[in-house]
């Protein structure tokens, strides 16, 4: 009797073990296919997301260097006020009569850029707003060791704050100096095109406050969007095209002095 009971118990144990193991295995095998099983409504939503590809146009010809964009960005996104952390900033280029180029961006242009070169020495001067270029071939995404920085389905380069290990490799990999290490959160930080706003139909803070409409935000795939019209009408360029990053921030009136 006794031995039979033990045998039965053992059989039960084996049965449940096999069921548990098999179940786990089956679940992990099926997990990748869960997308197929999603209901149609979800699938349609996803298609819509795929239709959007966010980008920005910057019109150097209209930027006046007031720095409101950089200021609004800091307020909107809780960027530390110290002058070492910027998601966006404005550079002032002054080409002197002797051919030398002076570039300045005190406090990222916040408070307005003022000319420091006497008028008689100036050949030409212009302002260049800078931000993350949301590259399609983003070197930062390529470099991140844990995949904490990624490109959203609508083309925005984002950082998962709960996942970033703070190694700074992405900061080294960014050719545009658009990333910084946030001293509060201790993770890599950068422009998100104000993702929390654009997903609600609003414009990024910098675009909204620009008094001269020097920043044009929109959907690159929407032929009627302001951005596509801007790209149609103006001769635009991207920064550092030789690096083949396929930037999604396009500049009108970009001069060769701009680095």
């Amino acid at each position, binding site marked *: 009797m006794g031995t039979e009971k033990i045998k039965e118990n053992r059989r039960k144990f084996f049965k449940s073990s096999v069921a548990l193991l098999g179940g786990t295995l089956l679940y992990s095998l099926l997990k990748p296919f869960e997308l197929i099983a999603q209901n149609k409504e979800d699938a349609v939503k996803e298609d819509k997301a795929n239709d959007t590809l966010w980008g920005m146009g910057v019109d150097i010809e209209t930027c006046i260097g007031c720095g409101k964009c950089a200021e609004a960005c800091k307020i909107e996104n809780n960027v530390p006020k110290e002058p*070492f952390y910027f998601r966006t900033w404005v550079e002032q280029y002054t080409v002197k009569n002797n051919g030398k180029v002076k*570039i300045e961006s005190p406090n990222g242009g916040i408070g307005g850029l003022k000319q420091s070169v006497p008028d008689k020495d100036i050949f030409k001067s212009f302002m260049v707003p800078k931000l993350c270029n949301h590259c399609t071939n983003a070197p930062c995404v390529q470099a991140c060791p844990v995949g904490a920085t990624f490109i959203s389905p609508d083309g925005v380069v984002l950082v998962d704050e709960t996942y970033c290990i703070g190694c700074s490799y992405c900061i*080294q*990999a960014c050719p*545009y100096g658009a990333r910084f290490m946030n001293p509060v959160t201790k993770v890599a930080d950068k422009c998100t095109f104000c993702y929390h706003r654009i997903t609600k139909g609003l414009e990024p803070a910098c675009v909204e406050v620009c008094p001269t409409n020097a920043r044009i935000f929109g959907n690159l795939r929407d032929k009627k969007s302001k951005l596509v019209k801007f790209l149609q009408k103006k001769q635009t360029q991207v920064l550092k095209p030789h690096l083949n990053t396929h930037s999604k921030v396009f500049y009108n009136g970009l001069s060769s002095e701009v680095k």
Partner: protein
Amino acid sequence: MEEHFQHLYQALSHVDGYIYPNEIDLHWGLMIVLYPYITGLVAGAFILASLERVFNVKVLKPTYGLALLTALAFLLVATLPLVSHLQHPLRSYEIFMTPNPTSAMAIFGFVYLWYLMVVLLLEIWFDYRLDFVIWSKKSTGFKKYFYKIITLGINDTDEKSAKLDDKLGYFITVLGIPSAFLLHGYVGFIFGSIKANPWWSSVLMPVIFLFSAMVSGIALVMVIYMVVSWVRKVKIEMPVLDTIAKYLLYILIIDFTLESLDQVHRIYEAEESFDIIKVLVGGKLNITLIYMQVLLGTIIPLFTIGFFQIYKPSEKIRKTCYFLVGIMVLVGIFFMRWNVVIGGQLFSKSLSGFTSFSAVYSGMEGYLMAAVWLLLPLLILAFLLWLMPPWKKISFKVN
């Protein structure tokens, strides 16, 4: 944080020309200088060990075990400066859990593990297993238990098992050579693959890192061999030193040629970034590159050992010179890493200006911490030499 801001405000006042506003903070400091430095010492020491084992340079026998244990001691510490530099060190395990396959840094974690677990530990184990069995019978206390456990229950002492150990150990050393190349070539790739930085982005970077690693590792084992012999009060065998120095010379020549090639290429092509790099080399890196790396770390050692190939002065002079040359090479390679890591961040990616670097004494990124990371492997090595002295091995006595 306030202290950090103060540091940055100071750096801001030292900016020369224009840099992007996010570039004032140098993200990689002393810790990232140490990381390739220590990893390089590992790769170099291992390759010296394999010279004896695989390439049959029998005269180097007294340094074989020493080189292996040196490699292990430094490898155990190699990733610590890297992890301590992370802003979220507790998340570092994510590199292994969810590695990004396109990231050079992510794959390094696996190369490191492979090297530590498969190559170094296994090779040392096969090399020492027989001795562990014998020592476990002779020793008492902690050592006895350690030896007993580390034999993993394989207590055969017959000739057949010793031969098998030797065969497997040999196989792993053969496997270890490309692994050591991979380990340090990979560290070079972490920098060489960054196209945003013209000072780093070079196809030669992995090769340069590899050869400079060999140079530093060989110099380290040479110095350690001398120091250990002094401490043990045994005679330093001059053929050993002469042979190590000869290999140091060969590799140093290759290393210097490669680095010169890299620079000549830059100068001749004179691309967009050349203007700023020229100023960097002539200015901010003048002392660390020209004097420390090239003159002290390369030219003087090259000429000294080169001269000894033609004319051999007395043993005493040679010994002193080898010791000094070893130290000079070690300092030189440290500054080579410095020039790559710090140098690459001193100029702006706008190619229009410079920021400055001033290391602090205290804190996780300071000189004191750096000293700890450099001393720790030496302490580990001393412990390993006490626990498993290569000169007490049976095979050591037999040969």
